[in-house]
Structure formats: structure tokens, C-alpha cells
């Protein structure tokens, strides 16, 4: 049963707390900060896709005036680890070391220099002499596991620290399989069966702020890291691990982050930066150039899907078989978990009893893949979204009707929930919040679906520019259930204001604001009375970090708990002041009021009494929450395209997305998330593309040649919120960060089909590919 929540602060589009300082250009980002004596570090990157380092001579570089330290595999401890910012024990293979005696892709780390200026560091890099023994390389994910292929991770110490299948000797770095019901039987009985192969491509996050890190020593010898990082607590743990120091010797501070989208859910710079600080005793700064971000940070996993689906005579899904091969690149950060979500967080959208999933991730000598918004659901939504359209056509149903018929509803559960989560076994869940049918209906109406379908059907046969429309439903489960944990600490100040200390990681998403709204709602105070502080491993309690669409849902519940505890304490003190039983008291507009006598006492009086008056104590509370479930956020996407049939170019004039994120704590912020995610999906589908040469070198590592949209290209994007109520979430909220990106790829493919009658199963839908498909058809 849904009930929509509407509160005083929750559910209102309050101003994003940091928006004005950001609009004023205040120095709030990692690199807006210099320290006396700061050194600048630069990396030497591998020029070869696969090679052993036969010899490396850093002596000339060390000797250069102004150079303070040079690091390579010879002078750093070999600590095998994963760079993936995930909870411990990490579900990614331990296959990375700070510097290795082997390189595995063009752009891999070879060495690094810390010097007094960037220019000196760059000159020093040129003085490092490396002799390589080139090895054969493999780039094609479909052949990486073949017999006789070069072994990328042949080091004896690579491993997982959880018991999963891992066969690096075959370049095989992750495997998940699942069987529910009986797919073979189901498809045998099916009226129509579809067997298709799909392929997605390498893309990148393109956060405008490059990866940045500054580290320095505190007087007591502790290492402080200030970094543009989505996972400060995981960073602390993994940096300590790499430096072989106790965790208590490391502090990670997260300032404002200029976008992340998953690219900063990694320990990408912090280990080397901190090592330099440890060795030189000086502050050290590392900021990647844009080219280095493109090549040596992280990409989306490229994936190939072999699908088999079918529908019964009554238009219901008879079975889904998904076989996926995911390309990890040279290292396996997030290799298993992204692939797992192709099933775990994608397929529970569909009402289907027979599901088979066979997933494998492989190593290749290409830039490393990692976490990226959508995280497996984005990729797997492509084959599912297109196949649903094909099946709707075979069933002679409007896709809108077909999706409504074959997707889950409130009250449903799904066999996959229990069998598989993002990390291993999942959690059984009944869907308690789902406004998907309403999302479909409202989206179709706002978009003008029926009318546009008709117009497209009636357009002149010979028009060179052809219009088409397409739609899909998408889902994203929030959090890694039973694993993700968030905690907060709050305390009351003299004037009735509150400090809210959270480990949660705002990266532009506005979680500072959203968490403050939840806190303010519970205590019935204005936003200005909440002082959020994020995130610092010394001062704020643990939070897993910003990923898996988890902050609003899990951190939000912790905030709610802490606020309730504080409310109780305030009422206790007020009861003393008023001389009334606390059962008769409630909070109201920064006061505690008696329901019986109408007597009231202000929060500031309560605070002063508790701090200075009687029974002095600090009114404060901490709270921790583990995500109990992965509640699903739903989105329905409607897109209009115009295809130039002579050049193959596809323009998107119009996109509507309807979104069910439970209660939108801040509607404007939620819409902003959806709009940004949608545009990212559109440009990925059409214009973004890594181009590799035959050695896996990135030929277009810059914004000139890797195109994302500007205001000149962006379509009209309309985001409409369709609230539901998630009982396990704070004030009914779920999270909203990722689902918006998952629809563009399949919806645009469907719209192109609607326009010109060709199905595209391989992304991106470049003009050349589209034109070729059009020509092949005729």
C-alpha cells in the first residue's frame, strides 16, 4: 500500500546547502589548497601493452636538482591489494601492487617522481631508463580465455580474499552463475524465441575535476590525505595496507568533489601520494592531467551478451537466458560485482520464473575498468530493453502494454533477490514500494507516446529525416544489502543548532542537504540549524562511501535514528525544565511543547540547561545502519529520435523520464540527478567512444575527440517524479543516483528501429553504424 509522504522539510526543494559558495567559486576542492614546501608528483606510464621490466634505472632522475624521491617496484613494498573502494573483505581480486615489475596496458604505472615543481618532475621522468621485454598482448574480450593466450596476471600472489572462482591463468577473473526455474523448458514451450548477441563499449565518466590528491604529515607523524575520493574510509584502509602502517596512522579528508560517477570509487593516487609523503616528509600533490584521466584512471566495462528470451502465447515472458562476458581491462577492480549486477539488480524487474545467468569477466591488456554509474545494470539493460521491444512487437502489443504486463508490481517478490546480490548471496525481499505502472502511464502521457507513435507511422515513406520513438523501463537496486553500513554522529549546540557529522560522501549529489533535511524534519527545525560536516575519517563515523545508490537510503536511516535519539534526550531535559512527564511532550518548531498544558521551552533553553545548568551532559547521539534490503528504484524512459537516413546521424530532440525513488526528499535535487544521468546515457549511446589502436593505445584521450554533449546538443529532458513509499527507507525514500542512466541505450535503439526499421545491437550508434544498418536492410 503506498502512501506518499509530505513533510515540512522532507519533500521540499530546499536550496542545496553548498550551492552559493560553489557559485561564488570558493576554494573548496582538493587542489584549491597549497601547503608550504609542497612537492609535485608525476607518473611514468607504460608505453607497451604487456611487458616485463627487465631493468629500470632511476639514478639520473634522482640526481636531478629539485627531485626529492623516485618510486618504482624496486623501492616500495610489494603489497598485493585491490584498488576497488569496496567493503572489506573486498569482492574484487587482489591483483594490483603500487608498482610492479610488469606492465599490463599502455598507461599502466611504471614509476613516479616527486619534485619541487611539475616541470622538474616531468624532466625527471624523461631521465628514467626502462628496458622492457615485450610480451604478446590480448585485447579482444571474446578470445581472452582461449587456449594459448598470454597470461596477464601470472604473478603467484594474485588472489581473491573471499572464496570465489578465480582462474587468472586463463585470464579469467570472475564468474557468477545462477539458475532459477527451468529456462530450457520455458523456452521450449515459448511461442516466440529470440536469440541475440549484444555488445557495449568502453566509455568514461568525464567528471570535470580530474583525480586529485594532496598528502602531508601531521606533527605526530600521522599521514593526512586530502583527496577527491568517493570512499574515504576504504581509502584509509587500503592506503594503510599498501604502506604497511597501522590504519590509525592514516587520516583521509574528503573536500568537495568535482564529480565522480564511480571513477573515484578507487584508490587511484592516494597510495603513491602518501608513500611520497612518508619518504620525503613533505606535503605532496598529485593531480592527473585530462589525458591521464582518460588513459590511466578507470573506464566502464565493455560487455558482450548472448541472450535467449521467449514469450508464451499469452504475451508473458517464458524465460530469460543471459550470458555475459565483461572486459575488466588489465586489472580486476569491480570485475565481479559489476558483472553480478547484470543479473542481480537488472533481472528482478521482470516477471519471469525461468532465468539463467552465466557471467564471466576477463582480463585484457586494455585500460582498467571500474565502477561507473549503473554498474552492470546499465550494460544489461541494453539487451533486456531491446529484447522486450522485439517481444512486444512479436506479441503485437504496444511496448507500453507489454512492459506493464511483464514487470514486477508492489507486493511481488522475485526469486533472484535471495539468490544473488551485488556481492554474493542476496536477500529475499518483497517489493514494498513500486509506482512503476504509474511511471509508465505518466511518462507516456507527458511524452505524448500514442500520438507520437501515430505521427511516426504516418510520416512520408521517402522522407530523408525520419522520426522514431522508443521506450523502456529500467530499475536499479540500492546498496549492497547486509553489507553496506553508514553511521552518523550528531550533537546539540548552545543556540539550539546541531552538528551532524557524517562519513557520507557528497560528490555533488547533494547528500549534505538531503541528510540535513531528514534531520531537520525529525526535530522540526529549519535547515539553517543543521551544520553538516562530511567527510573525515578522524571526525566522522564510518560510512561506506558514495556508491550503489545508497546514501539517501542507508545514511538517511542512520540520520533518522540519530535524530530520534536526540529528540528523546531533548524531551528528557525539557521534562525536567517543565516539570511534566515526558510522555506529554512533543517537539514543535524548535521547541518542546506540552500537549497537556501548552507550556513550551525552546531548544536553546534545553541546550543551555544541558550544557551549563543541571545534570550537565552533551546531548548527542550516534547511529549506525546496515542496509537491510536493496529496494529498487524504477524509471521509465521515453525518447524521440530523428535519423538522417543519408548520413546515419541520430539527433535526440526530446526525452522524458519518470522516476520512482520512493519519497523524493528533495524533488529538485532528485530531478537534477535524473537529468544528468539521462544525458550521460544519451551521449554514451551516440557519440562517446574510446578508440584503440592495435596495441590498445587510446587514440582519443581528450574532450576534443571523445565527445560528450554541450548545451548546444542537449535535448529537452523532462524528469517527472512519481513518488511511492518505501517503508524501510527514511520517510519512505529510496535512492535516485543511478537509474536515470540505464534507459538511453536501449530506448534509443528502439527508437531508431521505429524510425528506420533496423535494430542496433552494438553500441555506440555512430552515424556510420546506423547508415550501414540502413543500407544492409535495403
Amino acid at each position, binding site marked *: 500500500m503506498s502512501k506518499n509522504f509530505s513533510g515540512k522539510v522532507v519533500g521540499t*526543494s530546499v*536550496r*542545496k546547502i*553548498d*550551492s*552559493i559558495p*560553489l*557559485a*561564488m*567559486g*570558493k*576554494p*573548496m*576542492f582538493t*587542489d*584549491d589548497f597549497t601547503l608550504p614546501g609542497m612537492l609535485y608528483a608525476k607518473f611514468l606510464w607504460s608505453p607497451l601493452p604487456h611487458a616485463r621490466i627487465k631493468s629500470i634505472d632511476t639514478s639520473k632522475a634522482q640526481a636531478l636538482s629539485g627531485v626529492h624521491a623516485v618510486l618504482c617496484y624496486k623501492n616500495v613494498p610489494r603489497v598485493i591489494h585491490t584498488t576497488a573502494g569496496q567493503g572489506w573483505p573486498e569482492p574484487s581480486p587482489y591483483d594490483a601492487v603500487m608498482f610492479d615489475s610488469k606492465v599490463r596496458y599502455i598507461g599502466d604505472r611504471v614509476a613516479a617522481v616527486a619534485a619541487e615543481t611539475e616541470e622538474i618532475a616531468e624532466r625527471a621522468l624523461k631521465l628514467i631508463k626502462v628496458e622492457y621485454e615485450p610480451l604478446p598482448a590480448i585485447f579482444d574480450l571474446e578470445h581472452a580465455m582461449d587456449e594459448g593466450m598470454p597470461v596477464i596476471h601470472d604473478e603467484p600472489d594474485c588472489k581473491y580474499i573471499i572464496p570465489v572462482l578465480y582462474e587468472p591463468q586463463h585470464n579469467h577473473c570472475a564468474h557468477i552463475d545462477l539458475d532459477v526455474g527451468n529456462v530450457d523448458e520455458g523456452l521450449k514451450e515459448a511461442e516466440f524465441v529470440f536469440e541475440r548477441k549484444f555488445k557495449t563499449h568502453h566509455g568514461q*565518466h*568525464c*567528471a*570535470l*575535476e*580530474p583525480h586529485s590528491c594532496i598528502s602531508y604529515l601531521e606533527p605526530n607523524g600521522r599521514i593526512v590525505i586530502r583527496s577527491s575520493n568517493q570512499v574515504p574510509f576504504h581509502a584509509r584502509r587500503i592506503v594503510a595496507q599498501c604502506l604497511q602502517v597501522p590504519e590509525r596512522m592514516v587520516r583521509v579528508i574528503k573536500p*568537495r*568533489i*568535482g*564529480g565522480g*560517477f564511480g571513477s573515484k570509487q578507487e584508490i587511484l593516487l592516494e597510495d603513491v601520494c602518501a608513500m611520497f609523503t612518508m619518504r620525503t616528509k613533505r606535503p605532496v600533490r598529485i*593531480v592527473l*592531467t*585530462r589525458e591521464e584521466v582518460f588513459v590511466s584512471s578507470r573506464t566502464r566495462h565493455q560487455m558482450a551478451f548472448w541472450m535467449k528470451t521467449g514469450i508464451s502465447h499469452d504475451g508473458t515472458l517464458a524465460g530469460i537466458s543471459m550470458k555475459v562476458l565483461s572486459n575488466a581491462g588489465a586489472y580486476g577492480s569491480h570485475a565481479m560485482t559489476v558483472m553480478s549486477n547484470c543479473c542481480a539488480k537488472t533481472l528482478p524487474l521482470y516477471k519471469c520464473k525461468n532465468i539463467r545467468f552465466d557471467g564471466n569477466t576477463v582480463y585484457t591488456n586494455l585500460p582498467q575498468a571500474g565502477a561507473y554509474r549503473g554498474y552492470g545494470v546499465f550494460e544489461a539493460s541494453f539487451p533486456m530493453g531491446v529484447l522486450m521491444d522485439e517481444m512486444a512487437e512479436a506479441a503485437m502489443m504496444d511496448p507500453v502494454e507489454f512492459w506493464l504486463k511483464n514487470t514486477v508490481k508492489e507486493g511481488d517478490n522475485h526469486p533472484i533477490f535471495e539468490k544473488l546480490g551485488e556481492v554474493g548471496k542476496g536477500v529475499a525481499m518483497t517489493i514494498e514500494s513500486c509506482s512503476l505502472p504509474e511511471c509508465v502511464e505518466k511518462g507516456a502521457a507527458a511524452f505524448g507516446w500514442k500520438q507520437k507513435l501515430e505521427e511516426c507511422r504516418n510520416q512520408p515513406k521517402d522522407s530523408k529525416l525520419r522520426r522514431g520513438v522508443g521506450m523502456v523501463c529500467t530499475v536499479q537496486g540500492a546498496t549492497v544489502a547486509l553489507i553496506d553500513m553508514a553511521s552518523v554522529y550528531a550533537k546539540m549546540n548552545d543556540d539550539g543548532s546541531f552538528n551532524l557529522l557524517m562519513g557520507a560522501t557528497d*560528490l*555533488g*549529489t*547533494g547528500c549534505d542537504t538531503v541528510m540535513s533535511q531528514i534531520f531537520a524534519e525529525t526535530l522540526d527545525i529549519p535547515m539553517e540549524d543543521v551544520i553538516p560536516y562530511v567527510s573525515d575519517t578522524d571526525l566522522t563515523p564510518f560510512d561506506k562511501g558514495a556508491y550503489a545508490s545508497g546514501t539517501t537510503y542507508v545514511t538517511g536511516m542512520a540520520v533518522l535514528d540519530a535524530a530520534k535519539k536526540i529528540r528523546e534526550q531533548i524531551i528528557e531535559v525539557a521534562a525536567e525544565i517543565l516539570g511534566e512527564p515526558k510522555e506529554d511532550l512533543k517537539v514543535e518548531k524548535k521547541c518542546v511543547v506540552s500537549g497537556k498544558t501548552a507550556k513550551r521551552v525552546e531548544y536553546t533553553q534545553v541546550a543551555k540547561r544541558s550544557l551549563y545548568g543541571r545534570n550537565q551532559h552533551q546531548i548527542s547521539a550516534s547511529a549506525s545502519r546496515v542496509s537491510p534490503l536493496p529496494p529498487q528504484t524504477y524509471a521509465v524512459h521515453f525518447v524521440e529520435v530523428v535519423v538522417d537516413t543519408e548520413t546515419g546521424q541520430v539527433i535526440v530532440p526530446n526525452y522524458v523520464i519518470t522516476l520512482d525513488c520512493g519519497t523524493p526528499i528533495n524533488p*529538485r*535535487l532528485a*530531478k*537534477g540527478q535524473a*537529468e*544528468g*544521468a*539521462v*544525458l*550521460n546515457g544519451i551521449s554514451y549511446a551516440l557519440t562517446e567512444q574510446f578508440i584503440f589502436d592495435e596495441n590498445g593505445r587510446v587514440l582519443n584521450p*581528450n*574532450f*576534443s575527440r571523445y565527445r*560528450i*554533449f*554541450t*548545451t*548546444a546538443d*542537449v535535448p529537452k*529532458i523532462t*524528469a517527472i517524479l512519481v513518488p511511492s513509499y518505501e517503508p524501510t527507507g527514511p520517510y519512505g525514500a529510496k535512492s535516485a543516483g543511478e537509474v536515470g542512466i540505464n534507459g538511453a541505450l536501449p530506448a534509443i535503439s528502439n527508437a531508431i528501429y521505429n524510425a528506420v526499421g533496423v535494430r542496433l545491437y552494438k553500441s555506440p550508434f555512430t552515424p556510420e553504424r546506423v547508415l550501414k544498418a540502413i543500407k544492409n536492410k535495403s
Partner: protein
Amino acid sequence: MEITCKINGEEKKLVFEPHEKLLHVLRREGYFGVKDGCSTGECGVCTVLVDGRPVKSCLMFAAQAKGKEILTIEGLGSDDSPHLIQLAFSDAGAVQCGFCTPAMVLSAKALIDSNPDPSEDDIRKALDGVLCRCTGYMKIIDAVKLAARRTLEKAEREAEYE
């Protein structure tokens, strides 16, 4: 080498190497609101106004600032009184991570100063040199529309008093 120019209304002497670009010199001088997203003129977050024109400061040589008037984001608004455009960005929800915001705000200022009643196409064109990955641009375009409207209204109110 050394040049003098005006930055945010203040006479400034800048000292730098001849090959240096304006962006790095500005940041060194403490203007951290001028951002470095690529250093190659491809992302636009380094945009400042030079004699009222939007310019990518990572391409312009610092030496070319000689005798010019430069406006960085720090020159717009004050803590007590943010600029009308900055407020509009905040009101419209156009600020997410904020890394592109200074460049967007300055681009909007250049537009509104020369075209007080811009159409949506005018706005899209004026901002087409600054990349944003967070917002999808919708609310940024809304913010500029809002700012233009408020600027006109303010001018009308001020004209009334005269």
C-alpha cells in the same frame, strides 16, 4: 616577465614565465575559482571574462592579459550579497558538484550583459563552451533564464526610481 592588468577591478602586477598561460598564473595568485579541467581548451571550466568577452584562460597567454580587465568568479558578488546570477543558479538547482559553475556563471554574465533578453537558443549557444557532466544542463539553462528575467526586472525597478 611582468605585466600589469586589472583583475576584478583591482590593479594587479603579475609575474610569470613568458610561456605560461593565464589559468595557471591566476590560480597561483589565489583565484581558485578558475578551474583546471583539461588545460587544453576543451572543457571550458577555466573560462574568465577578458574585457567582457568569455575566454578560455588555459589557452590565453598570461602575457596577453597586459592592460586588460579580467573578471574571475571571485569578482562577482560578495559573501553578504551574492550576485543575482549566482543566486539564480542556486535557486534553479543548477549547481551539483559546482566545478563548472564559475565558468557557467561568467558565461551567463557575458550573455546577459550583451543581450538582456536572450532566447533559449541564445542561452544554449552562450554556454556551449563549458562542459558539465552532473546536471544535464536543464537547470543551468533554467538558471540563466531566471537570471535574465530578474536582471530585467531589477533594471525596470531601478528605472522607476529615477
